[in-house]
């Protein structure tokens, strides 16, 4: 009997050891420098709030800790869209001036591999910038660092909250350099193909309500023709 108890305790210890190793994986990528930082192309930059209650609209399956906004928006409860979230955001420049509208569709990715620190989300932005045109951005984002450094510490905290300084490049693909893919739609962006990188900055998170102080930023490279049109 004592051998069986010893085996079970050993197995539990081993599984815990594995979970701890996976969580504290020192080889997990912590990207804080944009792959576009060295690009000579001109950039289009915008910011948006990542606090659902401050967006124009946010909805998900209604099961998460994050409240939908406004309260009576339709929830995405059907099986095919239950892992999808939609956020409609006002896009602002660095001085906080409104410059456009962005609709972000995000779905948990089946390419997620927790063993290699990959908590992936497939996301698509549908963007309208008045006086400039429309475009679409497709990205694969990795939320592993966000989960590890913000969400889990908030859960473990006795106050059910996290406060600090978090900044990460979230975009991990689908392009080879770890950038997102941009397709121009109308106006100055018509026919454009470009790259994009999205980052997330967080200062406060609640394990009860979700993001408290958080914003995202997007940088899109502009080919010379588009820069001149702008």
């Amino acid at each position: 009997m004592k051998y069986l108890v010893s085996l079970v305790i050993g197995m539990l210890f081993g599984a815990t050891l594995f979970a701890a190793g996976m969580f504290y994986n020192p080889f997990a990528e912590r990207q804080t420098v944009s792959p576009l930082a060295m690009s000579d192309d001109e950039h289009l930059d915008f910011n948006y709030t990542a606090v659902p209650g401050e967006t124009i609209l946010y909805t998900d399956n209604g099961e998460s800790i994050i409240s939908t906004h406004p309260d009576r928006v339709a929830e995405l409860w059907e099986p095919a869209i239950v892992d999808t979230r939609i956020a409609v955001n006002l896009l602002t420049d660095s001085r906080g001036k409104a410059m456009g509208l962005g609709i972000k569709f995000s779905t948990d990715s089946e390419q997620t591999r927790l063993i290699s620190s990959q908590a992936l989300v497939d996301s698509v932005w549908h963007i309208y910038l008045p006086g400039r045109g429309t475009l679409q951005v497709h990205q694969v984002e990795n939320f592993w660092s966000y989960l590890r450094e913000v969400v889990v510490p908030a859960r473990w905290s006795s106050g059910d909250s996290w406060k600090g300084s978090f900044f990460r490049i979230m975009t991990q693909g689908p392009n080879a350099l770890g950038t997102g893919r941009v397709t121009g739609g109308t106006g100055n962006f018509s026919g454009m193909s470009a790259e994009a990188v999205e980052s997330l900055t967080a200062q406060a998170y609640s394990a009860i309500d979700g993001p408290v102080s958080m914003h995202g930023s997007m940088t899109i490279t502009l080919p010379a023709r588009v820069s001149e049109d702008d």
Partner: protein
Amino acid sequence: MLKTFYFGIALGLLGAFALTYSVPAVDLHREPSLISVRQNGGNSETYRIDLPRDRILIGLAGVDNALPAGLDWPAEELFGDLQTEMFKIRDRNGVVIGVASRLASASEATGPFIEWTVHLPARGTVYLQMEVAPSAEGHRNGRLMAGTGGFEKLSGTVIEQFITEFEDEDLNIDARIELITAFVGQLDDEE
């Protein structure tokens, strides 16, 4: 007994590794794709939006019937007559398979436009651009601008049509939007 404990640790490590490696963390629900093969190549698929039940958002400055209730839409000075709509998307059997956004503006400075982004989790996303003027048959023609996932290497066209008359009155649907796609795969370069 200590050896048994060490053996247990090894077993626990291996078991946890095997479990994490083999069991997918995300397993998206898939509905069968209802695709018809076209006579001249490629395939066709019809996406349906039943109104009003599939509408998630109507955003238009200066109107009283914004949806959902409590929506705080940005002022007219910024977006002019931009009409932003979001919907749930159904297949031709009426099963929800995705979500979509439709942006339209008649007075945009760079030219009027109508665009769709149709996001089908587990399959991919399509970016569609429509002609602003309807055809003589009453529908709008458009084309695939870009696709992701299973739509990445496709090109093709799309028809947007608005239906208000139904044979079955019990459906409790006021209107229906149909997006009928005709996509074809691109030929790979010969080596």
